[in-house]
């Protein structure tokens, strides 16, 4: 297992190195190297999956570590932790990564930086596998940042476009905000336990080495990291912009794997989260689920709709962790990875077709991603259409598909949560409302793109189905939305029990005094609420589907009229609640103004008003006393002081020139001050 996981980790890195150094010189720019490497990881990962299925042991665990730093009292060990969750996640990453590689051979074909693109994909796969395999917070953090870097590189892959370069920067910087909290959290654990290892931290929490408010703070720190990486409110702003990257990248990184890393981390570390942290997690997740869903309704860019739908689904997973149904959250992570990647591939296929059509028409103005330029593509792109429909039904929570069972498990979890703490009734409310909106906007996407009469006939007649390298990944992933893949050997589409639920079982919280409920009791409550959740979610999803059908397929209700009637709500949603504008107004601008103010204070206020003013006041005082006292002496001393301040003001003013040598001088003076303090 450990050896196999070493291969899984390092094969993509090897591919990255080969691609980055020799990629351009290899035949086909070396894409086969990358595909062979990730294909190899997929084979190994499937082998590991088979192994754990044969063992069928919920407590299966393997760990291996090596010593990285040893300074006597201070040791850091890095290593792998492999259990059922790890293996399932590895399969997900390897599968989606392989599919994205295959898909990219056509989608990115002819790009001038083709080989570098595959190199970046390899780097990403390596780092993502690192996150999955880590057995300690330190290597988790290292790979976490590596994932951020490769995401930055891939979002800004078309860096000639300003919007793409900006989106990359935005994603990276927004993630940094979350990572700051994450790092603080990690360090809080490290100072308390003296170890980064998960098991040591679990033991430490169980023994009460870190408890109470500090444990809550540390947990919140970790959650900050998840908020950044999994794009929860308020750090969600980067994910929609990240759609500037190539579509297979959006499918792999910004839908299926990287953004799920935050959820994966929370799932791993669930047992050490205090109840307070969990409640915050539940609210943030639930709010994100609803909030993003309401934005998705009004977007016109096909990829942005999917981006907001991803936000909403990630919100579901985070909410599931918060309510305690964290295995359900992980379940949803896996099923969501399949259907959302499939949806992105579908969208990419449409965009690819649009691009080619526009290219033939010599049209560089029309937006290839705007759904208002589409319509009626169903007959032109049947494979894309059917795979997207299946994936859409899966995300909507229609029975017999994977999304139904996983979403159902989460919703039952929220009901159970509200059952034992009724004051938090808002959490299931968020969940169920989002469950109603999801099918509405997803079917809106399908109807606008594929149904009715084409809006731009001249484009429509040039649209053709995408090549096989792109349709095969779509077919594979959309067929993986069939429920039986997750419930075997059981075959009950409504219960959702099967190998997955048997292998991934909830652990009890290790926090001392976690008075709420044990994992077992919670599972009981979930079981009680199962039927209710199912009925509610199916009927709400049906309602969403019905409205979408009336609005966008049958046109019985006019979407425009309703948008008019809803007034500011529509505007808010269309402008994403003005979050970017609010940040600009209340964070970026004030910050810039603050720096301006500091500069102003230093230059104009301090220098001219205060110091010169001091000089002037001294001068006046001197004149005043000059009538009484001997003029000369007075003038010399008082004016001397004034001049001294004037001069030091001027030299201070010089100090702000941005010259390195001035700063060096200040460093020198500071050192002198420190030395004097030391000597005295």
């Amino acid at each position: 297992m450990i050896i196999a996981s070493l291969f899984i980790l390092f094969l993509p890195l090897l591919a990255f190195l080969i691609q980055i150094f020799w990629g351009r010189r290899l035949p086909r720019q070396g894409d086969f190297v990358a595909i062979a490497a990730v294909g190899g990881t997929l084979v190994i990962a499937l082998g590991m999956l088979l192994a754990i299925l044969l063992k069928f042991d919920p407590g299966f665990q393997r760990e291996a570590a090596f010593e990285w730093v040893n300074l006597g009292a201070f040791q850091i060990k890095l290593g792998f932790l492999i259990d059922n969750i790890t293996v399932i996640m590895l399969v997900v990453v390897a599968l989606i990564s392989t599919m994205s590689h295959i898909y990219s051979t056509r989608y990115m074909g002819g790009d001038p930086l083709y080989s570098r693109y595959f190199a970046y994909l390899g780097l990403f796969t390596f780092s993502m596998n690192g996150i999955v395999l880590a057995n300690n917070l330190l290597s988790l953090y290292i790979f976490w940042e590596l994932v951020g870097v490769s995401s930055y590189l891939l979002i800004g892959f078309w860096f000639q476009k300003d919007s793409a370069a900006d989106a990359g920067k935005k994603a990276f910087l927004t993630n940094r905000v979350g990572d700051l909290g994450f790092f603080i959290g990690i360090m809080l654990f490290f100072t308390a336990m003296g170890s980064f290892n998960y098991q040591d931290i679990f033991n430490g929490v169980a023994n009460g080495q870190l408890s109470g408010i500090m444990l809550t703070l540390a947990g919140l720190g970790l959650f900050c990291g998840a908020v950044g990486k999994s794009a929860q409110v308020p750090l969600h702003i980067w994910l929609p912009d990240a759609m500037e990257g190539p579509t297979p990248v959006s499918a792999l990184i910004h839908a299926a794997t990287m953004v799920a890393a935050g959820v994966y981390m929370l799932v791993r570390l669930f047992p050490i989260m205090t109840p307070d942290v969990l409640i915050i997690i539940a609210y943030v997740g639930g709010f994100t689920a609803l909030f993003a869903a309401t934005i998705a309704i009004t977007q016109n860019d096909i990829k942005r709709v999917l981006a907001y739908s991803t936000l909403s689904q990630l919100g579901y997973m985070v909410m599931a962790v918060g309510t305690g149904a964290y295995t359900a959250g992980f379940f949803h992570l896996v099923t969501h990875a399949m259907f959302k990647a499939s949806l992105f591939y579908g969208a990419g296929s449409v965009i690819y077709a649009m691009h080619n059509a526009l290219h033939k028409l010599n049209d560089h103005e029309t937006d290839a991603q705007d759904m208002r330029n589409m319509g009626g593509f169903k007959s032109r792109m049947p494979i894309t259409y059917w795979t997207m429909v299946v994936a859409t039904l899966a995300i909507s929570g229609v029975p017999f598909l994977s999304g139904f069972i996983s979403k159902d498990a989460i919703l039952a979890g929220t009901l159970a949560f509200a059952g034992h703490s009724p004051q938090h009734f808002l959490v299931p409310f968020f969940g169920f409302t989002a469950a109603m909106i999801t099918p509405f906007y997803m079917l809106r996407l399908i109807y606008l793109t594929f149904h009715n009469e084409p809006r731009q006939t001249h484009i429509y007649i040039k649209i053709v189905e995408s090549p096989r390298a792109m349709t095969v990944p779509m077919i594979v992933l959309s067929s993986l939305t069939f429920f039986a893949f997750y419930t075997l050997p059981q075959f009950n589409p409504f219960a959702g029990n099967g190998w997955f639920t048997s292998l991934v079982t909830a652990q009890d919280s290790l926090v001392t005094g976690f008075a709420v409920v044990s994992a077992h009791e919670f599972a009981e409550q979930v079981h009680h609420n199962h039927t209710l959740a199912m009925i509610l979610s199916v009927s709400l999803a049906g309602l969403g589907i019905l409205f979408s059908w009336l609005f966008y397929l049958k046109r019985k209700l006019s979407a425009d009229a309703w948008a008019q009637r809803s007034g500011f709500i529509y505007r808010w949603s269309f402008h994403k609640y003005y979050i970017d504008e609010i940040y600009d107004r209340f964070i970026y601008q004030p910050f810039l103004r603050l720096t301006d103010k500091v500069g102003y204070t230093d230059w104009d206020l301090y220098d001219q008003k205060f110091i010169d003013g001091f000089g002037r006041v001294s001068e006046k005082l001197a004149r005043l006393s000059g009538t009484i006292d001997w003029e000369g002496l007075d003038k010399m001393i008082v004016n001397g002081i004034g001049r001294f301040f004037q001069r030091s003001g001027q030299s201070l003013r010089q100090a702000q020139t941005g010259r390195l040598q001035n700063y060096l001088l200040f460093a020198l003076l500071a050192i002198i001050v420190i030395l004097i303090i030391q000597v005295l």
Partner: protein
Amino acid sequence: MAEITFWLLALFTIASAVIVVTSRQLIYSAVALLFSFIGVAGLYIYLWADFIGVVQIMIYIGGITILILFGIMLTNKITSVRISHTSVQRRIAAGGLTVLLGLLITMIIKTPWYLVAASEPTQTVESIGKMLLIDYLLPFEVVSILLLGALIGAATLARRGR
């Protein structure tokens, strides 16, 4: 006698260093730097480090000073013999550094140094060679890679933009 030459050497080194940092002409500074390096090499020999002294002469005087002279020639018109250069913030820096120097000297004098009586080694080159290839083999190799990198880097940097 040894005492007197030592003090002369020290004075020579420091006086040259003063010229390096105060002279208004770049060429004078460079030449004074050369003399300062020679003085330091002499100090090494007083400290029983003859090998380091030789290395100092070879690399600093034979290499770096020449490199700096080349730098001056390449970045100024060769015809202008008097390449002057000005200084900034002299007074405040001089004041600050005098204070710093005073503090350093106080500390050096006040600190009870841990001294070990040693006898003069007979074979410095041999023991340095052994240590380099046994105890310090890894740094030695790393440094050789660093030198290679600096070589390539300097060449590419200086070539660009032509």
